[in-house]
């Protein structure tokens, strides 16, 4: 080695002594315990981190980095979005042409558009996975309840950003997604022109849809509205909530506090950098290989057949098949969001904080089930909801073909398939009975009543009363579904239906397998044997439902004691509504039932 130092090093050393350098960088960068701290709290971008953190909190397998990656994707979306804005004009005459230009004529335009689209999809995935992680590790438990609420709002805004974003290309997907979304707004109770219980002064020119669309038909006014929402308004609010979200993570500290404390620089910062690099590589390759979809130019007179929303809204689109728009489009999404927000306030169980739940095999009657050692109810309900949502997405993506008819994933689509779908309403009285009996399942049996029963009628009385109640409700549910299907006349006959009874109408259809089976049984085995078989079916369905009710009865009594009346009356209705949605889907797909209760005068259908 030469005695004189390298001139480059000399120059650097001189530079570091200048006033200019020192005015920008306040500390030197040699790796000492002191500078490690200084790097974090002396840097505006890094100072949101703590300077030291428990080792287990930054374990990759604990968080999978989902929150951080979501934030990185947000930054990537801001940058690519700003670049796209240089070429895009939000008027219906040129918007579609500008997107075509971006894709085919502008250097790197297509790549940036792909990047923006795929990063948005990835961000939706990451935000959802982040929420699932936070739920499963109990990280929303006190003192982090409020931050969970902020997180749910950020999820909603992420979806709203996606929704407002895909109107902008002004292609068919855009137009029909917005048509459907705006029409859902028009179906809002009270404030929508087509919603139930519409207020007397609401018309097409002053309802919620009108405000969203900026007119009565979707056009230039809509495009500029969504443009402003997508590029300015929502990101602005999003950033405010994001700041609160991060701030609260710091203030409430991390959900894991085990393990020795390590320096954030370099331990956490390097992980963040690696995650960002990994995501960048994935997205760049993805955007180079796969173009963002662009359908034909928007045309209100033609709807693509089938017309499918992007995957993250397909669950909602599929839900809209089973319920009236005001329920599926307004009430249920609101309940989902409010229900998610309520989780930390109704979950009083302090267990399971800061670790992934342990899985364990158990039996539910004859069925083997997988459950968790801690928080089995919370985890099961949350996962049931999540899985239901993704099953709906799966159905929408892979099981729906032209005219939104059911096709198995391996079936070929045919635009000329003759299907002749038939759906029928249950008579209102039976349907109402079904709904009442179903929600009565949620009635609790408080300790006091049990004690009174035991004192009055003997120690086994409470158990017997519960069994009787739930078996009764189970039978009632089965009867309320099957009996009207077999006995009731078809109110559409003869104007809109060729058959005088519901049994015949649905039995001859091709979209009500259970009723078809029953009808077939009566046809082939003769009325006596056929109806006896149906009676047996009703009895066994009632007993099965009753048995589930009894099992559920024990659980809900325990829940009632643990939660108290207020929390119980939030948790159980939400739970019953969630399972009820599943029930209604089953009634539609297996029995061909459209509405349980239908009162057209108020646009009220369930």
């Amino acid at each position, binding site marked *: 080695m030469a005695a004189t130092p390298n001139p480059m090093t000399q120059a650097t050393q001189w530079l570091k002594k200048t006033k200019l350098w020192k005015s920008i960088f306040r500390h030197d960068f040699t790796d000492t315990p002191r500078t490690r701290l200084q790097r974090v709290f002396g840097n505006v971008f890094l100072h949101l981190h703590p300077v030291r953190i428990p080792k287990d909190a930054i374990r990759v397998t604990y968080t999978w980095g989902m929150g951080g990656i979501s934030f990185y994707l947000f930054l990537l979306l801001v940058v690519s979005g700003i670049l796209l804005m240089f070429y895009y004009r939000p008027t219906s005459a040129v918007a579609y042409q500008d997107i075509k230009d971006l894709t085919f004529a502008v250097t790197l335009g297509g790549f940036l558009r792909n990047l923006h689209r795929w990063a948005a999809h990835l961000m939706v995935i990451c935000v959802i996975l982040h929420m699932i992680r936070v739920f499963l590790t109990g990280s929303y438990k006190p003192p982090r309840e409020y931050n969970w609420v902020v997180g749910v709002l950020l999820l909603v805004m992420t979806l709203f950003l996606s929704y407002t974003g895909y109107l902008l290309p002004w292609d068919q997907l855009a137009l*029909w997604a917005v*048509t*459907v979304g*705006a*029409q*859902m707004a028009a*179906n809002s109770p009270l404030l929508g022109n087509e919603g139930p219980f519409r207020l007397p002064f609401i018309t097409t*020119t*002053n309802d919620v849809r*009108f*405000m969203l669309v*900026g*007119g*009565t*038909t979707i*056009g*230039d*006014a809509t495009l500029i509205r969504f443009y402003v929402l997508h590029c300015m308004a929502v990101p602005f609010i999003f950033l405010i909530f994001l700041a609160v979200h991060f701030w609260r993570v710091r203030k409430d500290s991390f959900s894991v506090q085990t393990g020795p404390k390590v320096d954030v620089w370099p331990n956490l910062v390097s992980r963040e950098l690696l995650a960002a690099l990994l995501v960048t590589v994935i997205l760049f390759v993805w955007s180079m290989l796969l173009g963002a979809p662009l359908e034909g130019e928007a045309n*209100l*007179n*033609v*709807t*693509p*057949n*089938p*017309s499918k929303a992007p995957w993250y809204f397909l669950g909602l*689109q599929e839900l*809209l*098949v*089973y*319920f*009236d*728009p005001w329920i599926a*489009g307004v009430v249920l999404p609101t309940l989902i969001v409010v229900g998610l927000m309520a989780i930390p306030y109704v979950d009083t169980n302090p267990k399971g904080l800061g670790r992934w739940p342990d899985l364990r095999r158990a039996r539910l009657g004859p069925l083997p089930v997988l459950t968790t050692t801690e928080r089995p109810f919370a985890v099961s309900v949350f996962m049931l909801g999540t899985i239901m949502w993704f099953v709906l997405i799966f159905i929408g993506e892979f099981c*729906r073909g*032209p*005219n*939104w*008819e059911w096709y198995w994933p391996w079936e070929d689509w045919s635009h*000329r398939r*003759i*299907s*002749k*779908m*038939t*759906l029928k309403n249950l008579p209102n009285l039976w349907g109402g009975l079904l709904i009442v009996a179903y929600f009565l399942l949620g009635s609790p049996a408080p300790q006091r009543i049990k004690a009174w029963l035991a004192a009055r009628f003997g120690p086994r009385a409470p158990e017997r009363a519960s069994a009787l109640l739930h078996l009764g409700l189970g039978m009632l549910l089965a009867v309320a579904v099957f009996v009207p299907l077999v006995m009731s006349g078809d109110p*559409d006959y003869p*104007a*809109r*239906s060729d058959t005088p009874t519901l049994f015949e109408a649905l039995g001859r259809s091709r*979209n009500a397998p259970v009723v078809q089976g029953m009808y077939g049984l009566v046809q082939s085995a003769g009325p006596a044997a056929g109806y006896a078989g149906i009676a047996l079916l009703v009895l066994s369905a009632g007993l099965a439902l009753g048995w589930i009710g009894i099992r559920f009865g024990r659980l809900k009594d325990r829940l009632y004691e643990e939660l108290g009346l207020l929390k119980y009356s939030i948790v159980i209705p939400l739970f019953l509504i969630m399972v009820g949605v599943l029930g209604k889907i089953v009634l539609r797909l297996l029995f061909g039932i*459209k509405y349980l209760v239908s009162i*057209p005068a108020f*646009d009220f*259908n369930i």
Partner: protein
Amino acid sequence: MTNGTSASSPAGPDADVRAPGLWERLDQALERRQFILKSGWALFWLFLGGWLLSNLRYLFPNVLYEATLTFKGGRPEDFPLGVSDKLKKSHRVWVVRTEQGFYSVWARCTHLGCTPNWFEAEGRFKCPCHGSNFTSTGDVIAGPAPKPLWRCAIQLSNDGQLLIDKGRLENRPGQRDKGEFFLPYSNA
């Protein structure tokens, strides 16, 4: 203080000390400075709330630049018996010719506003978005649509063409089969 206020106090007429009236009670509850401060804040929130609400009104435009909903759809004799797709691509309506006359159906699903298609083989309108099925009269037979398709006002213009107005709509059975929503042959 009027007699009315003291008489209404629970202490009764014999009470030596009069119960404080409304104004006195207010004075006690809100010391004067407090009162001014609280009024100030109340006005502040009132102003802020009012301003935000007024912005809500701002989002409802007063003038709309939208295309007319009335159009001429050609001569009646150009439409064969049954459902005609002829005007759908250009005006989003179907013209249906029956043994008795003409009516026009707006091609907009009553569920969430997609444009259904006509399937001649099944005699049904089917919607591609959520799978609603309608008969040629517009009645729902399957799928989630809550009410029948809308019929447009249809009449004969002076030059012998069908004049269709998508701004005047009707879908109630009975109402939709008469008046301006049905054009019988005697008029055509």
